[in-house]
């Protein structure tokens, strides 16, 4: 109602917090949870060996969460990712162990298989308008069954060393074997600097445009924190065994998908479809194709996760990936996405995945039983969503 021609005042700290409470809240929650477990575990959480494990154990969730975020933002859901990951893992095991195909070829074929599976499901969802819940529920059953059938109820393994390296290898040091791992340091610190530089550049641009509404203290504190965390973490990991291979894969995927969702037109289209599919369609957006591609992408990422999991376990098993879909979906919702579509961020989903990961890891170190772990995780998911809803109804 107010008739003002200038932009929001830049120093309105309170208003800014209220508008962005979700994004800060989730980051703050992650930090609180990390500090809590660091103290509760007597400092074990942040030990380099545990930090490395944390990444290795949660990489598949993060990999699928970035794809699931897009699916959920588009207003859909994919329940089949756990089964698809298991199925592709089994397929890969068959190709590597039984057929002896070269590993790069197997990786490419596996990703293609995932894309085709995603495409088949996406076709029914996008073009036939069958609810994604039903299509992917069917997919969940079908691909679990096919996994068992391929594996004949047995495990296939072990894998050759190169295949295992996908999940449990570390990047080599080009500058000699001494610690710290120099290449890891260069990559990690380089990335930290690049992120800082990008943040400063965007801030400058926003200021030039008069749309910088984040108070400077917030901006400085947040980025200093991220920068220091990355620098410290790189140092810790480099002094242990270096950066894990999957860490690089994960970091590249997160950066790529954050860019696609925030800066590319296809990302815009996905948000618009989830926000109001009819308006998007009348704006000339080919929503069928975009939804279809979102599922192709999800299938491919599920396949990648399947390869990573198989490589880490060093075998393909009929029970691989059971319940993954729930962890992934929970991560996305903890990260602030809305079931109704149109809302959520890639970074939020990744933070959500790490909240789940740190809790799993911390509670396991503390020796908390799997029964309590499930209860606590469920309550955290519920709390995050209640926080969202109450926040929304206040504004």
């Amino acid at each position, binding site marked *: 109602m107010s008739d003002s021609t200038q932009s*929001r005042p830049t120093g309105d700290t309170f208003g800014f917090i209220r508008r962005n409470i979700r994004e800060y809240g989730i980051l703050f929650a992650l930090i609180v949870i990390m500090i809590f477990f660091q103290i509760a575990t007597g400092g074990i959480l942040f030990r380099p060996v545990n930090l490395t494990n944390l990444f290795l154990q949660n990489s598949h969730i993060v990999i699928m969460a970035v794809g699931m975020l897009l699916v959920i933002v588009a207003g859909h859901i994919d329940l089949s990712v756990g089964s698809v990951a298991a199925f592709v893992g089994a397929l890969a095991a068959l190709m590597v162990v039984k057929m002896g195909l070269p590993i790069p070829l197997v990786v490419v074929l596996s990703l293609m298989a995932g894309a085709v599976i995603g495409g088949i499901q996406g076709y029914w969802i996008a073009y036939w308008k069958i609810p994604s819940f039903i299509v992917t529920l069917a997919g969940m059953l079908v691909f679990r069954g096919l996994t068992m059938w391929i594996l004949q109820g047995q495990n296939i393994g072990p894998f050759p060393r190169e295949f295992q390296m996908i999940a449990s290898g570390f990047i080599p040091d080009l500058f000699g074997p001494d610690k710290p791992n120099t290449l890891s340091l260069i990559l990690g610190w380089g990335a930290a600097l690049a992120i800082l530089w990008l943040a400063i550049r965007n801030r400058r641009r926003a200021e030039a*445009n008069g749309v910088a509404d984040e108070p400077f203290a917030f901006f400085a504190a947040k980025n200093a924190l991220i920068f220091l965390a990355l620098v410290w973490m790189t140092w810790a990991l480099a002094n242990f065994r270096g950066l894990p291979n999957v860490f690089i894969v994960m970091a590249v995927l997160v950066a790529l998908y954050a860019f696609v969702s925030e800066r590319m*037109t296809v990302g*815009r289209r996905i*948000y618009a479809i989830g*926000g109001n599919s009819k308006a*998007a369609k*009348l704006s*000339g957006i080919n929503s069928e194709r975009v939804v279809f591609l979102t599922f192709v992408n999800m299938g491919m990422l599920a396949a990648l996760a399947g390869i990573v999991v198989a490589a880490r376990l060093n075998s393909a098993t009929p029970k691989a990936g059971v319940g993954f879909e729930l962890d992934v979906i929970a991560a996305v919702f903890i990260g602030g996405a809305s079931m109704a579509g149109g809302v959520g961020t890639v970074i939020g989903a990744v933070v959500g995945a790490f909240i789940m990961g740190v809790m799993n890891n911390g509670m396991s170190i503390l020796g908390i039983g799997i029964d309590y772990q499930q209860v606590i995780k469920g309550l955290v998911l519920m709390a995050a969503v209640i926080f969202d809803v109450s926040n929304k109804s206040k504004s």
Partner: protein
Amino acid sequence: MDAILEMRGITKEFPGVKALNNVNMTVRRGEIRALVGENGAGKSTLMKVLSGVYPHGSYDGEILYNGKPVAFRGIPDSEELGIVIIHQELALVPQMTIAENIFLGNELATRGVIDWNETNRRTAELLAKVGLRESPQTKVGSLGMGKQQLVEIAKALSKKVDLLILDEPTSSLNEHDSDALLQLLASFRDQGMTAILISHKLNELSQVADSVTVLRDGATVAQHDGMLPEDQIIKEMVGRSMDDRYPPRDPQIGEVVMQVRDWTVEDPDRDGRLMVKNAKFDLHRGEVLGIAGLMGAGRTELAMSIFGRSVGKLRSGEVTINGSKVDVSTVPKAIKGGLAYVTEDRKSLGLVLIDTIRRNIPLAHLGGIAAKGVVDSQREAEIARDFRKRLNIRSSSIEQETLNLSGGNQQKVVLAKWLFTNPEILILDEPTRGIDVGAKYEIYTMIRDLAEQGKSIIVISSEMPELLGITDRILVMNEGRLVAELPTAEATQEKIMSIIIRSGHNLTDDQITPEQIEAETPHV
């Protein structure tokens, strides 16, 4: 004076906004009181205070009902005392029958077991009262808007109602249904019911209302015990006199830009039923062409089927733009052909409400803010700021969510979205529905300016004065057919209405030949 309701010094604040500031309103027993004001003046907020949506304690001031102070904690409290509100958006479940809807939440049941015989009998009584000849078993979804509105009223009557509040009850009704509804309301008044009627349609208010309260910017401007002339009400509403409701124009009409021929569209849900029959018309450069007709005449279907076949199944027809046949079979192709369609339903078809102004504007032309698929956010912000200024979109900034804008400003965002595609032909479907007088004038001015720049514009509107005020030529549509065409200079409301009524005569058969249409078309 016997006042059924007195609201005194009502003040309601939201974080950062004073929605109501010391508002007073008195309603006498047995009258129809009009409540008017521009969008955002606080009418709906005031009614929410009255009905208990905003509970006692969340506002300042007092409410006297039948002379006694009341403190409602919620809608059940106010309904118990006979205050019933019918909202602008109908709250009916389309999949349920009339009877089920009327007694929804208020079922005639003993220990949870519903007495269907009694329910149907009472429903039949209520339907007779509101003059709706339908079976209680009819599904609400199969009724037209006018009949649905009557079901809403029957539902209100099923409760004990002394004070009925209607919020824009005719906004989605055609004139015939509106008249019937207003007459019904008047007959209820004669039987002793009191009503508060909120409406933008001042001519309707002058028909039935006995008195009027005017709100502006959250404050009571005036309370009159009788009705005033329209001009005077408008003056009080906007706080300035509106001598001219339409901007002056000097049309420069050029050559034919678009030709539509033999356009026939079938209803995909009902086999064989035609939504548009053999439509044929031309559109010139710099021209504003109006399409008049009743609700459901097929005007929106005609427009949306031309715009990328967004509605119905095309049976035949072709579109020619600038002399060559154009493929408009999908929305992207229609946009490429130079068409833009501004929907009548901006909330569900026009905007991504949860997104900001900045993100909504480029949606129909993302290529315009991106290079190789990467959005240039600086350029995007510049464009949004530019449109915000040019169209006078009242908002805190381009980062405001469109959900929180008033109707007029939402409409401007939708317009901005389509102007950014730089169309040659703009189809505006009910461009001023539900928006206030001031914003209407701005939109009329925009339409005029666009025509002066050489764009061609089609305006579909149910408000005939508007068509008469801003167009050059008017097509009249009825039951899927374009039944007449006349220059605006020669048109009057009566003429258009009589064309519609005469054309509806004897022409209920879908299988009609072009010759018949020709023969039945009145030549004016």
